[in-house]
């Protein structure tokens, strides 16, 4: 087994353990911290699979921004130290979760995957940038539309969250 595979399985084990910790730890704040660790492990998985741009995005957006937002939202609530109380719906939730896991695993195993790994550029970031910012067949107009969407998010956030005068 080569080193990439070892790193992949170590990160996968880290992901499973931290995801279980998110669900099982009663303190919500610590569960949030474990969620950040799970995001980080997913970023590592992306990188071991050769998708370095996705890994960078995962760290930038999920570990960096979503993690901060989530922990801040937890700290904005009162009585965090009481944590999440015992949930009466744990049995149906776990049955539903097991069913979903079974369905996903079944469809994963029964799909014939087109193996495009050899065609994939590794590292992907430079190739992605070159294809997005190409003048003839690039994606410059969708990029600017994305900028407008982000502008709408800024204005919406200020209007919704900003204090009323």
């Amino acid at each position, binding site marked *: 087994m080569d*080193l*990439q595979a070892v*790193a992949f399985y170590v990160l996968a084990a880290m992901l499973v353990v931290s995801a279980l910790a998110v669900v099982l730890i009663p303190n919500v704040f610590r569960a949030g911290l474990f969620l950040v660790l799970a995001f980080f492990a997913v970023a590592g998985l992306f*990188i*071991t699979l*050769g998708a*370095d*741009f996705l890994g*960078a*995005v995962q760290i*930038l*957006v999920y570990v*960096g*921004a*979503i993690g*901060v*937002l989530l922990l*801040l*939202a937890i*700290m*904005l*609530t*009162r009585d*965090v*130290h009481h944590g999440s109380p015992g949930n009466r719906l744990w049995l149906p939730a776990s049955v539903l979760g097991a069913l979903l896991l079974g369905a996903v695993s079944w469809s994963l195993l029964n799909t014939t995957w087109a193996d495009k790994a050899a065609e994939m550029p*590794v*590292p992907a*970031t*430079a*190739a*992605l*940038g*070159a294809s*997005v*910012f*190409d*003048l003839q067949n690039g994606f*410059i107009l969708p*990029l*600017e539309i*994305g*900028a*407008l969407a*982000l*502008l709408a*998010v*800024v*204005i919406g*956030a*200020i209007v919704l*969250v*900003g*204090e009323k005068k």
Partner: protein
Amino acid sequence: MDYWAGYGSIALFLLVALIFGLITIILPKVLKLLGLVVRKPNAVKYTTYECGMETIGPSWVQFNFRYYIFALLFLVFDVLVVFLYPWAVSLRGGGWAAFTAMAVFIAVLLTGFLYAWKKGALEWR
């Protein structure tokens, strides 16, 4: 340096950081189990020493709601960095077209930043 070598060195850093952290946590406990450290606790040893003021009441406090708008704005400009990253990596090949495209992109988001500034969303009221 190729892809795997570059990320391999990051993985090595991560591994060393992890081992260092674990050793500093576990070593005192192991030494205590082996009876190598003398343990004579008293009230003075448990006081907060050179770690800030003594806390009054619980230290889990509700944060001020005003922080949330900063977190939301941070999220938006973090997404901007996601677009900047492949642009910066491929800038040499892209030429002026790529530069202008990103300049327009940043100008549009700068409008949002100026709006937030004008609205006083960045001020602490």
